[in-house]
């Protein structure tokens, strides 16, 4: 831990290593983003991309970069950061490394909302809106069912798993009811994809993240760290436990819902990013900022891989995050087991 103090009595405490990890992951995300924006049917060097981004370049380059490729990159960065932040909040609140929105049912809820629109028919804006509504409604249902003098970790996980199972069934039913063409589109959406994402997709998520990220990072992070000591101890230290948990759960559900609306339920980022950040920073407690940077880098990297790994054949990004994230999790469990920590 390092401390910066001003003569006026102000002081800021930080971990140099966590700061370095956050900055490193952010740089990696930016670098991968530069490559992603430069690659495609019209390849551009990093220098050309930078020149175009700063206002130079030909009108054609301007169009390709700012209208076609940049929105996709921004969506990827935001979805990765938002999912990682939400995942870190959930894992910290339920005090369980498996407490991610994929497992707690919020992602499935967003999918149900989107599938209802697919079956009933509707544009991509309606689909995104329905995903947000589905995620929020699921959040409310789980909160109401898990409520008993405050929401506690295990009950939240168990209720969440139950709700997730029900919604998976509902989603399967909705898929069978959708016309074939729409079902194909729905499956692509359910995998999580960044194909053809424009500013209309990035905008709402940007707004939500811009409000919630500072609220969580500056308003709630120190208290969240106290919550890890148990409700009683946190409360004895002056944390308004119930109110804080409600604010954090609502923020995390909003982030997940808007991320799903923008890119579909991209799997495993919310689960894996906090673990990666924790291993790299070696710091106890929720590493919110490093997690966000890792999440952003992870999703941009996965999307680059999804677009370019197989020439002429683009994969939905959710396939890559699923394979990488699942593989990482299995590797992690194997290593932890060998080290005798599990």
């Amino acid at each position, binding site marked *: *831990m390092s401390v910066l103090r001003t003569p006026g009595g102000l002081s800021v405490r930080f971990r140099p290593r966590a700061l370095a990890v956050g900055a490193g992951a952010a740089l990696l995300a930016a670098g991968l983003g530069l490559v992603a924006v430069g690659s495609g049917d019209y390849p551009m060097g990093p220098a050309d991309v930078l020149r175009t981004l700063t206002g130079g370049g030909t009108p054609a380059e301007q169009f390709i970069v700012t209208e076609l490729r940049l929105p996709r990159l921004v969506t990827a960065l935001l979805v990765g950061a938002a999912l990682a932040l939400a995942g870190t909040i959930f894992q910290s609140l339920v005090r369980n490394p498996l407490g991610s929105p994929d497992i707690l049912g919020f992602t499935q809820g967003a999918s149900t909302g989107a599938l209802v629109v697919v079956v009933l028919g509707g544009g991509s804006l309606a689909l995104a809106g329905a995903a947000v509504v589905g995620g929020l409604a699921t959040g409310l249902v789980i909160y109401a069912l898990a409520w008993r003098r405050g929401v506690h970790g295990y009950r939240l996980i168990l209720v969440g798993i139950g709700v997730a199972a029900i919604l998976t069934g509902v989603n399967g039913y909705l898929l069978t009811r959708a016309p074939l063409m729409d079902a194909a589109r729905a499956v692509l959406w359910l995998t999580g994809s960044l194909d053809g994402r424009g500013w209309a997709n990035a905008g709402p998520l940007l707004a939500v993240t811009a409000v919630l990220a500072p609220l969580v990072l500056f308003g709630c992070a120190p208290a969240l760290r106290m919550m890890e*000591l148990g409700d*009683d101890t946190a409360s004895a230290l002056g944390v308004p436990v119930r109110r804080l948990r409600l604010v954090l759960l609502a923020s995390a559900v909003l982030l997940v819902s808007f991320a799903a609306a923008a890119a579909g339920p991209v799997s495993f980022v919310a689960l894996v990013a906090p673990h990666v950040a924790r291993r790299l920073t070696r710091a106890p407690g929720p590493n919110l900022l490093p997690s966000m940077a890792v999440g952003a880098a992870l999703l941009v990297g996965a999307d680059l891989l999804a677009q370019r790994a197989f020439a002429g054949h683009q994969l939905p990004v959710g396939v890559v995050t699923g394979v990488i994230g699942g593989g990482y999790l299995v590797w992690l469990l194997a290593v932890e087991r060998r080290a005798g920590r599990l």
Partner: protein
Amino acid sequence: MHPGSTRLGGTALTLAYDRRVIAENLTVAVPDQSFTVIIGPNACGKSTLLRALSRMLRPSAGAVLLDGRDIHDRSARSVARTLGLLPQSSIAPDGISVAELVARGRYPHQGLLRQWSREDERVVQESMAATGVDDLADRLVDELSGGQRQRVWLAMALAQQTPLLLLDEPTTYLDIAHQIEILDLCARLHEEQGRTLVAVLHDLNHAARYATHLIAMRDGRVVAAGDPATVVTADLVHEVFGLPCRVIDDPETGTPLVVPAARRRATEPA
């Protein structure tokens, strides 16, 4: 000491979880600068009373007063600067060091731009020294023994620098030597730092030895309260715990010592 003065107490409290009523019309006062110990059989409501006194449980009726104001009219943070609590169970996050855990006790004194003052640093050092864990500062909490860990949690509560400190069964899960170690430590903090301590204890003899003020509870009622030397009698122990016993003088301290009656006497007393 101002006899009779009290910063913390509850009047006409009804304490309940949902609809299950634990105590009704309960009135208690914690004398200033006392080492108050609450005793009573299992499920008599002593831990519930401690939760109410520490603002964690809102009474269904009556009020807990801290410095003359209803404790629920004050913010959690403002209460946390006056009144500390060592709960029965706390969770040490994975990979946290002793010094970091003790430092978390400074939370109610910190802010967004006042994250770690020299005062914080000094108080954390003093708290670790007072509980004898300063040698362990860089060790991981997971690696410590039960007795060491309890001293670390106590150091964290001390770092909160509250004139009032509540302890919920601080000796549970410890062997007899570590129980005495923690209680001696509490007694020293009480004498040297002038803090008011309120502890829930299971062991009647520990309570009689260390308390300056004893509250005996049964079925959500206060049966007796006062100086242990006058409160602890064979009749009271029988009334509160339903245990036939003799009360003799503790040969070490002269405080009351409860000796449970034997089911069958080995030799008849002369």
